[in-house]
């Protein structure tokens, strides 16, 4: 029974997490850079040209991972915010705040790349198809979360109010997604489905590598941001003076 157990609770305290995060950041940064280089190389030079869409399809190597990250990070953010609220764990709330910006950036990237891809594929920059519309709404949810937290001065209230909003949003995301799908199928005029193209193995691997790269990037950036938040919030704490010195 007496296997060695890691004391996870220890790292829920900002004072212990701060140095740990500091040690982890260089590792994740290096991995991110490597994966991006490999992924982009495979995506741009190894993967074959699509016979229908030509070279322009390559934007999906950025678009798809960004879209996925936008969604994952929203869920992750809501979970962290919820944990921070339920267990009164400041670090959880700080993580949620840190994730929100990264998630919003990915969602924004996926919107921009989506419309850039739409131009050659559909002939227009924007179509109200189900996926683009849901991504847009996801962006709105991020904006709501970020602006709510930004306009509350008291950090404790900001954390908890953000948690309520994120959880309400989380319950709503499937409903919104479903309703947009329905709406889309009913307004046939606006439906553009991307012609499915056969994915060569190298395309798939490029996509997966870049997906991993985005994950690593998110982890690295979120850790950096969490450290900033900790430094800002705990500026009075004695341990911080020691850690920074």
């Amino acid at each position, binding site marked *: 029974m007496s296997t060695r157990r890691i004391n996870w609770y220890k790292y829920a305290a900002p004072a212990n997490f701060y140095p740990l995060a500091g040690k982890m950041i260089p590792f994740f940064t290096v991995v991110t850079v490597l994966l991006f280089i490999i992924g982009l190389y495979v995506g741009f030079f190894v993967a074959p040209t699509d016979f229908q869409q030509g070279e322009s399809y390559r934007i999906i190597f950025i678009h798809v991972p960004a879209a996925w990250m936008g969604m994952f990070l929203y869920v992750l953010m809501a979970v962290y915010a919820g944990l921070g609220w339920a267990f009164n764990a400041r670090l959880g709330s700080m993580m949620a705040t840190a994730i929100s910006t990264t998630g919003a950036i990915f969602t924004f990237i996926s919107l921009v790349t989506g419309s850039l891809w739409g131009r050659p594929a559909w002939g227009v920059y924007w179509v109200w198809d189900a996926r683009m519309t849901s991504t847009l709404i996801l962006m709105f949810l991020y904006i709501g979360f970020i602006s709510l937290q930004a306009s509350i001065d008291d950090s404790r*209230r900001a954390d908890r109010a953000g948690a309520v909003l994120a959880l309400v949003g989380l319950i709503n995301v499937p409903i919104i997604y*479903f309703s*947009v799908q329905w709406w889309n199928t*009913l307004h046939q005029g606006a439906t553009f489905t991307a012609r499915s193209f056969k994915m060569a193995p190298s395309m798939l691997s490029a996509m997966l590598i870049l997906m991993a790269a985005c994950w690593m990037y998110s982890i690295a950036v979120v850790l950096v941001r969490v450290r900033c938040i900790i430094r800002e919030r705990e500026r009075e704490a004695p341990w911080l003076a020691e850690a920074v010195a």
Partner: protein
Amino acid sequence: MFGWVSWRDLILAWRHRADVLATLFFFIIVTSLFPLGIGPEPQTLQTIAPGVVWVAALLASMLSLGRIFGNDYQDGTLEQLLLTPQPAYLIVLAKVLAHWLVSEVPLVIIAPVLGLQFGLSENTLLIVVVSLLLGTPVLSLIGAIGAALTLGLRAANVLVALLVLPLYIPVLIFGTGAIQATVNGTGTKPWLLLLGAILVLAFVFAPWATSAALKISVE
């Protein structure tokens, strides 16, 4: 106690009836602007009518959200309400009920008249009313969450729009869907059932979230 809370809000709204009327006129004016902006072709107007009525209803109901808790927060009565020996869930529900009666029901009543401006048939007008009756309580229920979260903040009015409007989207889609389905002669029932389902969900979850948000904001 539940009745007292709703009753109290109804009396207060009656004393401020000008505010309530302002919301109603906002709704009327906004819907009347669309024919002016788009042109009076009956065909076009019929097509845009469901969306116009619903979007205007969303905006009008948002204008009144600040009143659900705002004044009570300012003068300290909100604290006293939260300190009464009843679950905060019920207090929220009572206040939301009052808000719906005061700010949403007038919109539902006036909507058919506005529908006439857009040349909707009688049958369609009926669905306009039914869809609004099912959908507007959801607007009050979800809006209350946003109102509670933004209590006492500087830009509360703008902020509440950012928080709440994205959450209104399913109601908008199902509400307009029901009306369009009637116009096109496809089935209206599934849309209304979906609206009903959302109402049930909102009824169960939203007051809970609102009372959590209130406790956070009052602290």
